[in-house]
């Protein structure tokens, strides 16, 4: 299973790596979009899957990153602006993390959502007051350059989650997800760990936002803070399941493909079908596609045991 998985992942990485040399702009843009969702979902999992603190406001990091790159456009080189977008997002997470991570469960969900909306409307108001409601970006880099920047971010986010999931840090995060009081009683520094996970999960989305901003020749603040981005990331992570990097890959591929097909062939039924798929998954396969694989494997194992002579 894990060898098969490694082979599949390598094949996917290779296919996405050669895509810009073999396909037209439309397909490259589609691939870019897939990579963006993958990078966002993997990053989200570093916080939310590992610690159980479900963030419904991850778009805030994406939006801040995009905004930073746009306001520094043609003043800062991109090689500086994009990493700065990640740093600003991480700093923001570090700043708000301590108070926000004091609350768990639904309170955390609502708080992150509200925080993202707060930043969104604060920036919209600031833009309106300073008289720049929207911007036009001239001279953005070529699509292929943007594509490979995003490719690097998607690979980076996948590697980050893989490393976290295997590390001692990851074991600490899982234990605090299961029971925070017990975790600190066995020596896990829960406050610092939660904050570190929050900061780690914010940096790449900040850079993703910064890179995606380059695709918008016409930039409106409101759009890069769209809550649907947060919701879609959560849907992809839930459909994928598990707490390693496998889930986000499977979930992103599945939901992205599904929405591409539906947009193309049944635009009116899009939301209906998507909603149904989500409900079915939550009811039938709460641990997502990864969970389905594991159940099947467990069933085979038990079947083999049952066939053995006693």
């Amino acid at each position, binding site marked *: 299973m894990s060898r098969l998985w490694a082979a599949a992942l390598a094949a996917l990485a290779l296919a996405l790596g050669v895509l810009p040399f073999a396909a037209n702009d439309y397909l490259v843009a589609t691939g870019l979009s897939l990579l963006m969702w993958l990078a966002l979902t993997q990053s989200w999992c570093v916080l939310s899957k590992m610690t159980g603190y479900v963030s419904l406001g991850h778009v805030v990091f994406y939006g801040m990153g995009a905004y930073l790159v746009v306001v520094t456009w043609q003043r800062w080189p991109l090689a500086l602006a994009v990493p700065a977008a990640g740093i600003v997002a991480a700093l923001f997470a570090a700043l708000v993390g301590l108070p926000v991570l004091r609350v768990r469960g639904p309170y955390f969900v609502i708080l992150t959502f509200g925080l993202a909306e707060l930043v969104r409307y604060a920036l919209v108001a600031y833009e309106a007051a300073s008289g720049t409601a929207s911007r036009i970006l001239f001279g953005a880099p070529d699509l292929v350059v943007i594509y490979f920047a995003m490719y690097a971010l998607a690979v980076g986010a996948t590697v980050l989650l893989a490393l976290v999931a295997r590390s001692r840090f990851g074991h600490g995060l899982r234990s605090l997800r299961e029971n925070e009081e017990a975790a600190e009683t*066995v*020596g896990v520094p829960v406050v610092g760990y939660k904050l570190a996970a929050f900061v780690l999960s914010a940096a790449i989305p900040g850079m993703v936002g910064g890179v995606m901003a380059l695709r918008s020749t016409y930039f409106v603040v409101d759009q890069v803070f769209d809550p649907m981005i947060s919701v879609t990331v959560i849907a992809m992570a839930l459909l994928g399941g598990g707490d390693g990097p496998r889930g986000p890959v499977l979930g992103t591929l599945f939901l992205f493909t599904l929405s591409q097909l539906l947009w193309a062939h049944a635009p009116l039924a899009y939301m209906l079908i998507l909603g149904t798929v989500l409900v079915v998954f939550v009811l039938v396969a709460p641990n997502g596609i990864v969970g389905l694989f594991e159940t099947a494997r467990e069933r085979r194992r038990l079947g083999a045991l049952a066939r053995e002579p006693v």
Partner: protein
Amino acid sequence: MTLPLLAVRGVGKRFGGLSALADVSLKVAEGETVGIMGANGAGKTTLFGLIAGNLRPTTGSIDYAGRPITGLSPDRVCRLGIGRTFQIVKPFPALTVLENLRTAAMFGHAALRDVRAADRHGLAILDELGLADVADRSAATLTLSGQKRLEVARAVATGARLVLLDEVMAGLTATEVAAMLETLDRLRSSRRLTLLVIEHVMRALMEFCDRIVVLHHGERIAAGTPAEIGRDPRVLEVYFGA
């Protein structure tokens, strides 16, 4: 007497207007087993919370191995070498039994940063507690007796020298109590543990402890060997109204 491993001096804890614990002192020497006795609401679990760092004392101080630990966070107290169990069990339910111990071994006083070393350590402890067969099962699937054993196993897996056992025999059948006592007895000698034990099962306390401290309405009313406690007039009055 040499330096005590644990020295609690005049600790008190108020929750708003309610005094849960007042001016309680006790010393535990290395290798000793000390029982904490008292009715419901006497402040036993509060005392554990203060020692383990889950609660911050309103007054008084606590030293462990000669250094002050008053007000330290629970994770730091654990890393210094104090483990505790919870009366209402708090396993990591979705993790396997072995993974429960792995985390404790990696983060506690044992500080076995390598997963394989932590698992070897954990398996040895599971073996001593009779949980080796269920090492790969998720903690949520254990029976109450199993979960109580897991609490003990996880506290020991932190590498603690001092373990606070909070009613690890409550709710068990007589047979299970006897088995647990036997296990704890073996464990304290094999791992050279110092134990502080809260228990309602009297027989367990009397047989198992070197000394007993009795709390009543948040105050220490008696302390001594089990035999002394058994004939202490104040204890008898509180327990039997004689």
